[in-house]
């Protein structure tokens, strides 16, 4: 579904990604793990077209999306939950969700809204509350729900467990699995390697802008080097 072929990305003179190739097949959860500054978020941003890759090619559903403007890419059935949630703090939960369905008709909006509220009953309780007044976990749910409002076929999640309590992290990961069961393909970037690899079908390890290892989730969990570097021995 998503093919990333030999991508190189630069921030000015600094090269952040070196020949990165990743593939996500339909219906999979694929996770990308790595330390701080490894280039995980850069890869996410490159998929979205900001920054643009200096060379290489990204295909979504067979269509080349490299070189297209961000606003175009994000309307193709691809959604991202950005790092740090980034909900519209002074808008209500309802308005936030409405923004997610910006390019869809009213009927489609209402239909998807029901589904999202079923997935996150918490959001229904907080429906007309300002997003900024909710807890971190609730905001993360809202961010995922907002991304789901465009009915994407694939969703990119950038560190959804960042800054959340362990029990909330559990919930978020359960939701991610549920989304996959609903037929959404998921590309998950995580620092919480243990959790991420447990639910992932496959995983990639990024180090200094290069993919150093890839394999199935369980294989990576058992890998000696991965255990040492990311799972605390």
């Amino acid at each position, binding site marked *: 579904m998503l093919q990333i072929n030999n991508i190189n990305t630069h921030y000015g003179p600094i090269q952040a990604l070196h020949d990165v190739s990743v593939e996500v097949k339909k219906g999979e959860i694929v996770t990308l793990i790595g330390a701080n500054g490894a280039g995980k978020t850069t890869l996410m941003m490159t998929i979205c077209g900001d920054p643009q890759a200096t060379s290489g090619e990204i295909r979504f559903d067979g269509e080349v999306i490299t070189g297209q403007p961000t*606003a175009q890419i994000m309307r193709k059935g691809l959604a*991202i939950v*950005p790092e740090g949630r*980034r909900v*519209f703090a*002074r*808008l209500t939960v309802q308005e936030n969700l409405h*923004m997610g369905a910006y390019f869809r008709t009213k009927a489609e909006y209402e239909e998807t809204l029901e589904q999202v509220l079923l997935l996150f009953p918490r959001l229904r309780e907080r429906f*007309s509350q300002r997003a900024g007044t909710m807890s971190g976990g609730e905001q993360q749910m809202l961010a995922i729900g907002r991304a789901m409002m465009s009915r994407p076929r694939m969703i990119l999640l950038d560190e959804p467990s960042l800054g959340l309590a362990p029990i909330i992290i559990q919930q978020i990961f359960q939701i991610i699995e549920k989304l996959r069961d609903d037929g959404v393909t998921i590309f998950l970037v995580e620092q919480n390697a243990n959790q991420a690899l447990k639910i992932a079908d496959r995983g990639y390890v990024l180090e200094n802008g290069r993919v150093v290892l890839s394999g199935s989730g369980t294989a990576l969990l058992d890998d000696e080097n991965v255990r040492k570097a990311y799972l605390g021995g």
Partner: protein
Amino acid sequence: MMRQNFYAAVFAAGITLILTCLMVGVKLTSEGTELRVVGATSAQWAWILSGIAIVFLSQLFRDHISAASAGIPRPDFGKLLPAVSVQARLKPWLIAAVIVGLAVWPFMVSRGAVDLATLTLIYIMLGLGLNIVVGLAGLLDLGYVAFYAIGAYTYALLSSYFGLSFWICLPISALLAATFGFVLGFPVLRLRGDYLAIVTLGFGEIIRILLNNWTSLTGGPNGISGIDKPTLFGLDFNRRAAEGQTTFHEFMGIDYSSSYKVIFLYLIAVLLVIWVLFVINRLMRMPIGRAWEALREDEIACRSLGLNRTVIKLSAFTFGASTAGFAGCFFAARQGFISPESFVFIESAIILAIVVLGGMGSQFGVILAAIVMTILPEFAREFSEYRMLLFGLLMVLMMRWRPQGLLPSKRPHMELKR
């Protein structure tokens, strides 16, 4: 703590000393052909010294002062309004009552009061327009008065060169101002915050200086005078009709009174404000209105949802500018005379103050603030020299006691579980 305050107090007193000495303590006066430096009188020195003492003491004891001032109750105008559900029920009636009140009121008061009300309505229009750009889209625009000037000059020039009527020029002014808003929008798309403020400030000055120096077209600093007043279906409000035309009082068969013209202008202003309010309310309910607010909250999140920030920012600029064009056209018609003097930076500052004072993004707040900002100076006529001082004082007090504005735009902060 005390020690820190002491240093701050000495520092503040020192600055006050330098400032007051330079501004009040020494003066240049010309005696014949010579310039002489004259020191302040002893009474002035007493004032300066007591001022410095006040600054010093207030800084030294600022903890005590802010502790004492915390006890002063802060006004909450939001509480004066009925609950949201009641509001929704009362709204149509309230709107009808206000419109009827606005229409009847001018016939019962003095000409001066109606004139002042017309001015207030102009500022309400300007405030509402800038509210789109600053309050909703969160783009700090310090050159808003430029669009006001463009609207005013469009009507003035079209009227004096081509004899076009007010009603034809009204949409043209709005369109032209919108075009300029669009053109200005392009270069500033990448800018935000203070950088944007500087560029818009520059734009405001460019327009003013252009109008001031393009003497052959705009008349330069002399401005344009004798601009036609609006007519009511071709009836004008002069004492004597022009060749082959009828005046309003002849047509109605009543005696001439100069107050008809003032009241008519006022009623046009009321109509324009209602129109602007209606359009902006519609826009705010449409997706574009929400997109403005979302862009203000988080640009990256907006882009992640596939929104095109170029379109959103440009539309905010364009709509804001067209409102100013509207107001400008009306302003030119009301004054009958315009010059670049009317479009200096302080006007931008006042309009911005109206938006901030009213509570960013809140239309009702903006209207309230526009009324306060135009009517208060009239009451304080005797202190007209101190107008800017009072203005500054009001701003400081507002920021101290009600930084969120008179009536901040309202959304429930919390909701109880049902």
